[in-house]
């Protein structure tokens, strides 16, 4: 019964390492967009929320799911858009603005 949990832990630990390797290379210049971008990624909980809101099991479950969908969607949509808005502002110097 505990076996699926162990496989998940396995994946989790490896992903943490990938995260460390990838993100250490992000320069301080981009740390704010990094944060808002990863913030949007953490809204991936939306996937779980959708199933809860749509599986029609019980009223409680559906309502909780609906709230979760709203929260996660704000997180995802707002996070990605504001990251894009910031990254758009980063311009190189030699081109005259």
């Amino acid at each position, binding site marked *: *019964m*505990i076996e*699926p949990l162990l496989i*998940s832990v396995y994946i*989790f630990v490896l*992903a*943490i390492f990938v*995260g460390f390797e990838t*993100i250490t290379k*992000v320069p*301080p210049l981009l*740390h*704010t*967009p*990094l*944060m*808002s*971008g*990863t*913030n*949007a*990624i*953490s*809204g*991936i*909980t*939306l*996937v*779980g*929320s959708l199933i809860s*809101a*749509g*599986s029609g*099991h019980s009223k*409680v*479950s*559906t309502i*909780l*799911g*609906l*709230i*979760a969908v709203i*929260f996660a*969607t*704000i*997180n*995802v*949509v*707002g*996070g*990605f*858009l*504001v990251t894009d*808005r910031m990254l758009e*502002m*980063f*311009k190189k*110097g*030699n081109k005259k*603005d």
Partner: protein
Amino acid sequence: MKIIITLAYLLSSILFIYGLKNLSSPKTARMGNFYAMLAMLIAIVVTLLDKKIVDFTFIIAGLVIGSAIGVIAAKKVHMTAMPQMVAMFNGLGGGASAFVALAVYYRMTAEPQLNIIISVVISLFIGALTLTGSLVAYGKLQGLLKSAPVIFKMHQTLNLLLFTSFVIMGIFFTINPNNSSSLLAILAIASVLGVLFVIPIGGANMPVVISLLNSCSGLAAASTGFVLSNNVLIISGALVGASGLILTRIMCKAMNRSLADVIFGAIGGVVSEDIGKKDKQRVIKYAEEDASMILESAQSIIIIPGYGLAVAQAQFALYEMAKTLIEKGISVRYAIHPVAGRMPGHMNVLLAEANVPYDLLFDLGDINADFQNTDVALVVGANDVVNPAARVDKNSPLYGMPILNADKAKTVIICKRSLSPGFSGVDNELFYSKKTMMIFGDAKDSINTMVKLLKA
């Protein structure tokens, strides 16, 4: 079908990692963000194909409401307000995880599996803690709550007590999952803990808290992945968790504090006794005319912006001045300290918004050796990050903190409101140095005056 869904989730995970990889350069960063969006879209579309979903009413309602709020928030927010926006979004992510955990519990039909039970407990705990902690952080940054540390007697004892009761409730729930009251107790405990965790942290330590909550929101997503046995959640949650931890570490290092110090220390505002005893006569006040003459005759200038710059809304005036100086053939660069803003990398965004090209923005490590060959270091609204005491004075609370070596430049011009100490509460001997020109007043007014003088 199951295979297609699983493979799509794999593709989504790969795109998330690839997107983050592209964030390592400003040239590819926008594309990277786009890959992450695509990854998210794939994950969502694939999920909607899931057989378990029978009713789309609430899904559509939730998506529409959420998107509308998200779009407005992203378009309206001021760049100075990014920290509180990120704090709020962290909280929403955590909240979503907590609600999903609860929802999963309430739709369990058969005897629940042990792995799911444990995951629900952890997911609910991290999610609820992230939600309330982030709300407090938001309140502090937005000015709705007092930003000063709030700490009461037995604060840490209470935290420990609450954590212990969480563990006990978790064990209760694992033994008897049909008893929902222990789960609701966990929800309550986690919510209170989130508040107690963030409320004693204030002022200059906020960047650490936001980074930490960022990490928590990722871990919350990953724990939801454990609840649902969904790998794309586990992987992307882990990526975010790692990212937040890295930023937390960078911020702690830049502030010369350990993480434990920030969370349990509640320092800040400890004024050293030397202040007041200092002979203030030695500070020589200069006028904008003097400064602009020095700037004009320099060959190389490094600007050190601090958060005071953003408070005075002087980024645009500063850009105007730098442009004027560059047109006169003077080399102008910016030195950005990691804690120059209210969140990691904040100052870079504020300057980018004011049209400062990013190839003029330099990190501490990349520019610090150049100060000794620089004619003028222009410090605007910064204090602790240029305090030479950090290098030499072993008794200073700043000792060991990485600083920008402004004092190595031939002349130092400091635009500042007053002689008041920075967040550390320590006096800055650079203000009294012979080669320092202090210009008191509102940064925006001072710079605008200098721009006029330079253009004349």
